């Protein structure tokens, strides 16, 4: 008896059902409520920015992979997330072509130059946003009020420049000035809870990040609830500081990452030149990820102390 076509490969012979696509899909699902809210508040402009940003990100990924003669991997969903996240960090008043430039930079310089998915040290969407902030500073800081469409400042700007504090309710619901995804803290929180429930993200980063901001602002005499709800903190804490590729793989490393990012947000918000510090807090902590991983290796089973 001979069954000549048996597959011979190394164990294990079964694999879990989970795939990278499924993980990416969950992140997109989690972002949908906040995205829908931004379209509700800002209308067609918001929708156009989301669509342009995603298309530009996906196209950039495909074109670069074609040029590099690598397999085109846009179906993994990661470029869609980068495009969507970038869109959520920019103002609804942003011209569409600038949005597209941001997405091209996010994928091109933020991700593909390092070799693509999994190899980038920085969160690509935040690289795109950082580029836009320094290249188009005026457009990146022109905000409109979701209610009447006229120019207005963000709650963090109002606090920093004029000492006006926006109420908790508008911050929670999202009818305040700001970037697409900065508006409704509540919907971002719902998305974040979905990701926690699905086991996509580890609670350690959002909890240590938000916790550090809350404790520090309280200690420094500011309003912790306001600081948690305002600006991009919720978006950053649940969707960017939890980016798997650019954050630590160890559990204690994630706590260090969250605490470090929280510290930076508070320093920038309270003492820095920018009203908002989420962007740079995460990018800066991204640089520490390899070293955090190195020094937070878990104790292994049976490890014997030498020396």
């Amino acid at each position, binding site marked *: 008896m001979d069954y000549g076509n048996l597959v011979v490969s190394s*164990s294990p012979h079964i694999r879990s059902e989970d795939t990278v696509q499924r993980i990416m899909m969950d992140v997109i699902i989690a972002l949908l409520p906040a995205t829908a809210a931004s379209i509700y508040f800002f209308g067609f402009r918001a929708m156009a920015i989301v669509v342009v940003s995603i298309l530009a990100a996906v196209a950039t990924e495909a074109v670069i992979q074609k040029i590099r003669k690598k397999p085109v991997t846009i179906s993994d969903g990661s470029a869609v997330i980068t495009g969507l996240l970038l869109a959520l960090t920019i103002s609804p008043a942003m011209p569409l072509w600038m949005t597209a430039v941001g997405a091209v930079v996010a994928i091109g310089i933020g991700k593909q130059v390092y070799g693509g998915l999994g190899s980038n040290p920085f969160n690509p969407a935040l690289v795109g946003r950082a580029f836009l902030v320094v290249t188009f500073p005026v457009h990146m800081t022109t905000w409109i009020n979701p209610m009447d469409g006229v120019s207005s400042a963000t709650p963090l700007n109002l606090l920093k420049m004029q000492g006006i504090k926006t109420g908790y309710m508008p911050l929670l619901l999202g009818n305040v000035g700001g970037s697409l995804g900065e508006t409704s803290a509540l919907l971002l929180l719902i998305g974040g809870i979905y990701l926690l429930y699905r086991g996509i993200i580890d609670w350690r980063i959002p909890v240590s990040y938000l916790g550090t901001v809350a404790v520090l602002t309280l200690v420094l005499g500011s309003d912790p609830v306001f600081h948690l709800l305002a600006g991009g903190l919720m978006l950053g804490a649940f969707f960017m500081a939890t980016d798997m590729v650019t954050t630590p793989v*160890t559990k204690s490393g994630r706590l260090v990452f969250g605490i470090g990012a929280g510290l930076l947000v508070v320093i920038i918000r309270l003492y820095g030149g920018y009203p908002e510090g989420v962007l740079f807090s995460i990018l800066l902590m991204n640089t520490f990820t390899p070293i955090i991983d190195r020094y937070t290796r878990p104790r292994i089973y049976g490890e014997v102390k030498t020396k």
Partner: protein
Amino acid sequence: MQLKSLTFKGGVHPPHHKHYTEHLPLKKAEVPKLVIIPLQQHIGAPCDPLVQVGDEVKLGQKIGEPKGFVSAPIHSSVSGRVAAIEQRPHPGGGLVLSVVIESDGLDSLDESIKPRGNLENLTAEDIKNIMREAGLVGMGGATFPTQVKFSPPADKPIDTVILNGAECEPYLTADHRLMLENAGDVVLGLKAMMKAVNVKKGYIAIENNKPDAIKAIAEAVQGEGDIEVVSLKTKYPQGAEKQLIKACTGREVPSGGLPMDCGVIVNNVGTSAALGNAIKTGMPLVERIVTITGSGVKEPQNLVVRIGTPFADVIEQCGGLADNVGKVIQGGPMMGIAQYTTEVPVIKGTSGILVLKEEDLGLKPEIACIKCARCVDACPIGLLPTKLEGFAQKGMLQEADEYHVIDCIECGSCSFICPAKRPLVERIRLAKAQVMAEKRKAKQ
């Protein structure tokens, strides 16, 4: 009995798939017409053949003599005539010198086979002799010679013997059925083991997805104050030696060490039952329970199979293979070995023959690692598989060593859980072998 189920940190939850065979009572397989008995069925030195082509052999007759201390003798599993002594495919891979015997179907017993008396009258040395003469090896799959385990150096005091009835591999139910149907031999074997190293503490550890086995064993140890039945959480790799020791005793085997370094000897329940049987009847290890299972077998079963029976014969008794067979595996799906032919024989470590259909293989191309760290959470040792795989791929052996690659137990949890479908353990295993080879070279 404990109400709380014990466990370890990490691990994964593969689907059990035990429904195929867990309710099927043990059946004796037919005596094969031809057996292929490899002269190496254990970790350590191979055996020298004691017979020649044309010799008549009896059931239970010793046909392979160990060549070293770490080795175990081999016995004939049928009576009949030696047809050949030649290289044959081995389920562990490669070709191994094997004694091919044509059975006469009579099962005439070798005269050396007689009961060894009551346990009360046996000394520790007697028990170790029975272990050695019966050719006992670890029947969970690792096949380490049992008697060697029970001969620790004087500076390694043993105070605990653990029987492993976890059977954490999906699909397999051989140990489960054994504990249900022959708890007596399991317990007798454990008592003998405890006597062999003069210890007062024995555990029988079983995953809590086998409540009937826990009950059967608990009933069999009634009145044995020294033996504790431990319920374990159902999680892979709960039956890995180190994880089992941690769950039962709270102790850890020191990195690079053996269970005896923390005073423990672990054995599979199958090995224990084989020892019990050897004491009662004098019969060496010539047959074992094999779970023949999976989507690719028409009638999955738990069979008591003679050592040396070709896989093909065993599968034939289970209704044969289904269409579209993708893989034939010796052992379970997590750590078993894929076979290229069904001509390989059942050996002492064959706990299962798992046949998977092509569509169940889940072969998907690997993609880039997204550092989701599920492998880090799953590793029962606390290693960083994602880093180790990277080092392995780049040939960075020094870094792999620094990140404790040699502590990997090769359980495969990392590969199982990886959403990018990367063959992590395969690469890590390779780096581990290279680092160990370097270390050996450096020692010389």
